[in-house]
């Protein structure tokens, strides 16, 4: 080609300024002479197109061909043709060797401790930080997926001004011109909108900015706000508190629409403490029981020993009844349906005064929160099993409602939106976008060019948390540090750096800002440096958790006891954050979109949850499109009949219905925010539901919810005889015992999954996906039944439709010693090694699919189409180099993370075959599990945890009667003594 140097120039331009491989960045160079000459040389016809009105579509096409040809020319044929060594080898980075950084994963501003594994300078995998005092080594799906977010091709890659590519310099120039005016007016008309702020350094920056612009107003927006929780505490105690349960000391838990095990800032820490307490209490012979009332089923209510479906509007009455019973009174508003549950819960609470927990969740109303505080106070739980601490979130900002009003009044002249997307998130009642039209200057900074960006004058790319310096608090107040693991891919800036610029006129340096904030007044350089490095190493500031505070209940407004209400025919609508994509911020991540929602197993969209009774009454079936309307606003979505839903409750999921052109999330589901009322964001009363007559089945990964009479999930009642069995290993056979583990191998790998600890949170699935390069196949393929996850979490219901028991059962490959799959393979693509792994040799597989047809567990996954080849080049950077990327036509499955075993084995081999210590090999799913439900290790080591789990009376093999001798076994779920239930 003639213009080779032209490509170099284009590439340089793309790399330096706005990043490679995505069409939006091409926009930035499309008009440069280099690009023109390149086009004319290479694609003469295309050069004419480039000037035509269909320019955007053309650029999109060009992005693909660039990725194939020009831009990736240096790594032709999978990058193995040339070797490009460093010019100066960086310290610490050894080629191919993993390097971990402690950092924090953020969820609505709240931190969980993580370790970021990088390889050759690229962050590849998120692990939990076991030393972190709050998260204790667990992670959630959002943390696991955040590494994909870093390489997300949909991320914003350039500064944009009124929809046209611009630059940081242009933005800085424009702002510097504005600043004198702001300063002159003391910030009058200036409005700053952020997400929930827990970061001390960001808080300091905001404080400093407010000092510079005293009249500036600060607002906070969040799709899933904690306002109700703080307001409830304020009503009960006079000021806001964070409320944390102490499960270890508790004997019973009553949850009123609680969300302690559900995705959210608290999930990782709370679920771990809950499962630990439950295991300990079972061992002590007195199982920590959970009584849960919920309007719509959640992970918390799914794990309940005693569950009941209660309308959200009745929740306060229920709390009042409990309070009345706790105070020795009666339950005046109890109806027939709830009386038994109420009685049992109340009895348990009263029996465990000072050792009980009453809890509610983010979606509880302030009144409910206040009632729960009073209930805990009355039962003597406050201060013992219920701890109150200062809020981790910075208090004092205005709400979105306030901002909307201010904008509508015209009192906002400049709106700075930092990392949030209010145009999408704001309740429909606020009509935010319209109000925003009245603001003369709108600046948006975000990871994505989202709905708000489209309504703004300036859009600035924010740096991803994995690219920036920062800090954030966990729910318990522990300050976690955020450190960059890679230089910003798209020249984004961190939020605190941006604020520094608006304050001082120069874009700050995140590291300096962090150090400034952390440095104590009296510290010397040396002591500070040592402390800082230690904090970076550990990932958090030691002993920074908030101290428990004593609380005093304010005088309660006397609540009139109400008699039971007559059954109502009106529909209440509850809104819930999505258990995979949360509030929609991460809706562009394919891993999360394709993650089956724990209870419905639906992917790629949200549904309208209705109770079986309501569906029966209205003649609705799964997939019927219904229209839900209130106050002149309406949404349409497919019905999903949800066992365990309160009769007249309709549940809507947040996070969908995004309207961002060309993005992955575009066109998926409906936008529940449209219906959200301005006052109570979680509950809408008096809505109407009408079938539209249309139908569209949502894509799910599991059809059947029953066990069909089989004992797939076993339940161990406290005090009953063990339900586990060793029989599965003693069945008669013509063959001798399998030779695995008898060929002089060092280990016999096995896994045990504690079904009681499994809360169905899916962290394992996402961890597996990121560790093992598992492709996202898309909605159509899932509908055809070709979901690719190596690990699935089966969900079974038992009991009645209205009050079902829910069971979660993670099913990876069982690594059967008598593996049925292996016999069928004609080419030895699947076989055993002597350590007991059922191996899958991708490069040998010809794709007969016999192994999967022989597999009684159906855990194998086949690449029916080319799922990996057309992945964006950027997203391919996330791939784990230790795991083969599977081609089309190849079977794949769980390998017990054989690459991790191999790494440990090589280390041990280099060390004269020193035995691999127990716990040295952790599978990805095991590492991610917030409740440590998964045990993995060497069965031939009698002191290992896996050997202990195998010896547990709860241990059983799934379908053990088939004589497959699975290496993966289950520990039966726990339940209170049977006679009680």
């Amino acid at each position, binding site marked *: 080609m003639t213009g080779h140097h032209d490509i170099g120039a284009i590439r340089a331009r793309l790399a330096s300024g706005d990043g490679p491989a995505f069409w939006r960045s091409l926009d930035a160079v499309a008009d440069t002479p280099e690009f023109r000459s390149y086009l004319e040389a290479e694609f003469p016809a295309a050069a004419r197109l480039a000037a035509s009105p269909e320019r955007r579509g053309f650029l999109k096409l060009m992005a693909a061909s660039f990725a194939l040809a020009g831009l990736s020319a*240096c790594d032709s044929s*999978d990058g*193995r*043709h*040339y*070797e*490009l*060594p*460093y*010019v*100066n*080898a960086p310290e610490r980075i*050894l*080629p*191919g*060797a993993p390097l971990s950084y402690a950092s924090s994963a953020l969820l609505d501003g709240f931190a969980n401790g993580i370790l970021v594994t990088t390889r050759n300078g690229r962050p590849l995998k998120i692990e939990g930080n076991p030393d972190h005092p709050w998260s204790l080594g667990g992670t959630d799906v959002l943390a696991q997926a955040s590494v994909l977010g870093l390489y997300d091709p949909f991320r914003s890659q350039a500064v944009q001004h009124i929809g046209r590519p611009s630059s940081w310099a242009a933005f800085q120039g424009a702002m510097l011109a504005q600043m004198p005016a702001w300063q002159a007016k003391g910030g009058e008309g200036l409005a700053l909108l952020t997400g929930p702020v827990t970061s001390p350094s960001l808080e300091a920056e905001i404080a400093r900015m407010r000092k510079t612009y005293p009249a500036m107003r600060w607002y906070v927006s969040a799709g899933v706000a904690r306002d109700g929780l703080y307001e409830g505490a304020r009503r009960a105690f006079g000021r806001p508190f964070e409320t944390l349960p102490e499960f270890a000391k508790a004997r019973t838990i009553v949850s009123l629409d609680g969300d302690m095990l559900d995705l959210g800032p608290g999930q990782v820490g709370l679920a771990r403490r809950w499962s630990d307490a439950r295991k300990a209490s079972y061992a002590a012979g007195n199982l920590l029981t959970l009584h849960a009332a919920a309007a719509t089923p959640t992970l918390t209510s799914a794990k309940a020993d005693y569950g009941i479906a209660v309308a959200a509007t009745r929740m306060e009455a229920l709390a009042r009844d409990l309070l009345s019973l706790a105070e020795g009174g009666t339950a005046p508003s109890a109806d027939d349906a709830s009386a038994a549950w109420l009685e049992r819960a109340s009895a348990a609470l009263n029996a465990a005064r000072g050792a009980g927990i009453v809890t509610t969740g983010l979606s509880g109303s302030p009144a409910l929160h206040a009632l729960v505080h009073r209930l805990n106070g009355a039962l003597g739980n406050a201060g013992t099993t219920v701890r109150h601490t200062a809020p981790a979130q910075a208090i004092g900002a205005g709400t979105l409602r306030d901002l909307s009003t201010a904008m509508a009044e015209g009192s906002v002249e400049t709106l700075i939106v930092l990392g949030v997307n209010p145009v999408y998130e704001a309740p429909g009642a606020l009509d935010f976008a319209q109000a925003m039209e009245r603001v003369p200057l709108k600046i948006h900074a975000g990871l994505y060019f989202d709905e708000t960006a489209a309504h703004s004058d300036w859009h600035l790319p924010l740096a991803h948390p994995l690219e920036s310096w920062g800090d954030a608090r966990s729910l318990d107040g522990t300050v976690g540090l955020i450190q960059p693991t890679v230089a910003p891919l798209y020249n984004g800036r961190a939020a605190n750096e941006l604020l520094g610029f608006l304050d001082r006129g120069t874009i700050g340096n995140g590291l300096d800002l962090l150090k400034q904030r952390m440095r104590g007044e009296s510290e010397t350089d040396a002591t500070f440096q040592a402390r800082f490095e230690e904090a970076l190493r550990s990932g958090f500031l030691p002993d920074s958790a908030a101290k428990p505070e004593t609380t005093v209940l304010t005088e309660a407004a006397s609540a009139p006891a109400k008699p039971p209400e007559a059954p109502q025919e009106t529909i209440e609508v509850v809104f819930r954050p999505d258990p995979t994509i949360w509030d929609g911020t991460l809706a562009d991540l394919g891993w999360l979109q394709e993650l089956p929602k724990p209870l419905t197993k639906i992917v790629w969209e949200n549904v309208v949850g209705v109770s079986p009774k309501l569906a029966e009454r209205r003649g609705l079936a799964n997939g019927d499109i219904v229209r839900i309307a209130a106050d002149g606003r309406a949404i349409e979505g497919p019905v999903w009949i949800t066992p365990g839903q309160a009769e007249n409750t309709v549940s809507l999921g947040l996070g969908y219905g995004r309207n961002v052109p060309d993005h992955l999330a575009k066109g998926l589901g409906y936008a529940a925010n449209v219906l959200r009322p301005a006052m109570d964001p979680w509950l809408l009363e008096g809505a109407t539901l009408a079938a539209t007559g249309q139908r569209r089945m949502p894509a799910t990964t599991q059809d059947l919810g029953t066990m069909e009479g089989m004992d797939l999930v076993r339940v161990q009642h406290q005090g009953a005889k063990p339900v586990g069995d060793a029989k599965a290993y003693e069945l008669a056979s013509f063959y001798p015992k399998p030779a695995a583990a008898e*060929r*002089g*191998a060092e280990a016999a790998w096995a896994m045990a999954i504690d079904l009681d600890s499994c809360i169905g949170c899916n962290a394992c699935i996402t961890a597996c996906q990121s560790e093992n390069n598992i492709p996202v196949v898309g909605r159509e393929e899932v509908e055809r039944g070709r979901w690719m996850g190596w690990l699935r979490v089966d969900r079974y219901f038992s009991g009645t439709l209205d009050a079902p028991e829910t069971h979660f059962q993670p099913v990876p490959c069982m690594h059967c010693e008598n593996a049925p799959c292996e016999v069928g393979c004609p080419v*030895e693509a699947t*076989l055993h*090694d*002597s350590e007991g*792994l059922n*191996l899958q*040799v*991708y*490069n*040998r597989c010809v794709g007969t699919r016999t192994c999967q047809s022989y597999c009684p567990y159906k855990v194998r996954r086949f690449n029916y189409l080319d799922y990996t080849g057309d992945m964006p080049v950027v997203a391919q950077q996330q791939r784990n180099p*230790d*795991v*083969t*990327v599977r081609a089309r036509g190849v079977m794949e499955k769980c*390998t017990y993370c*054989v*690459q991790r*075993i*191999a790494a440990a084995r*090589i280390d041990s*081999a*280099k060390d*004269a*075959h020193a035995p691999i210590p127990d716990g040295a090999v952790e599978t990805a799913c095991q590492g991610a599990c917030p409740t440590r439900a998964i045990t993995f290790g060497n069965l031939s080591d009698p002191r290992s945890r896996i050997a202990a789990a195998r010896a547990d009376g709860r241990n059983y093999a799934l379908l053990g009667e088939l004589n497959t001798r699975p290496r993966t076994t289950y520990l039966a779920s726990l339940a209170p003594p049977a006679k009680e239930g």
Partner: protein
Amino acid sequence: MAQLFSPGADAIYRLALLTGVACLAGIPIVAAGIVRSDYVTDVGVAPAQPVPFSHKHHSGELGVDCRYCHTTVETQATAGIPPTHTCMTCHSQIWTGSDMLKPVRDSFARDEPLQWVRLNKLPSYVYYNHSVHVTKGIGCSTCHGDVTSMQMTYRANAFEMQFCLDCHRDPAKYVRPQEQVWNMTWKPPENQATLGPELVAKNHIRGGERLTECAICHR
């Protein structure tokens, strides 16, 4: 009327039949030969490099240790390609004006990597770890040949599966004393038949069936 076929037709027909059979048998044999030939495997072919670096000169004649440049060979999966900086430790002092070394100086000055043509390629689904091999007594030359005699470096062996299996099935044939690992001219001594098994035992090398399991190399 004459016969339908002339007498010569018989010979032609039979020859055609035999040729057909020979082709059926011969084509796979020829194909198998081509696949194994140097023409396909590139064994012994020294490609042009940006700098005509001579292992013979540096390592053979000057005696620079392998590990001076390939620093991670004892600790990591990859042996490591030296950064330009390594070249410049010497060549900022000697041969500073050599035209031959201009790409090295340019690379260092412009902070652009040298682009070496890769010699030893394994498919992306094969995971080879240098460190465990050298620490267990498998020498460089067993796979890479006598690099110290190569003016321009070439591929000494086609790394096909059978090449790897040959050693994994019976490491005693190739294992050497630890001090001989870096010796490029090592040849199995007379008593390799007795020495090999001793070294295998001493180095805790798992041989035979264990080392030929698929997951040893494929993941």
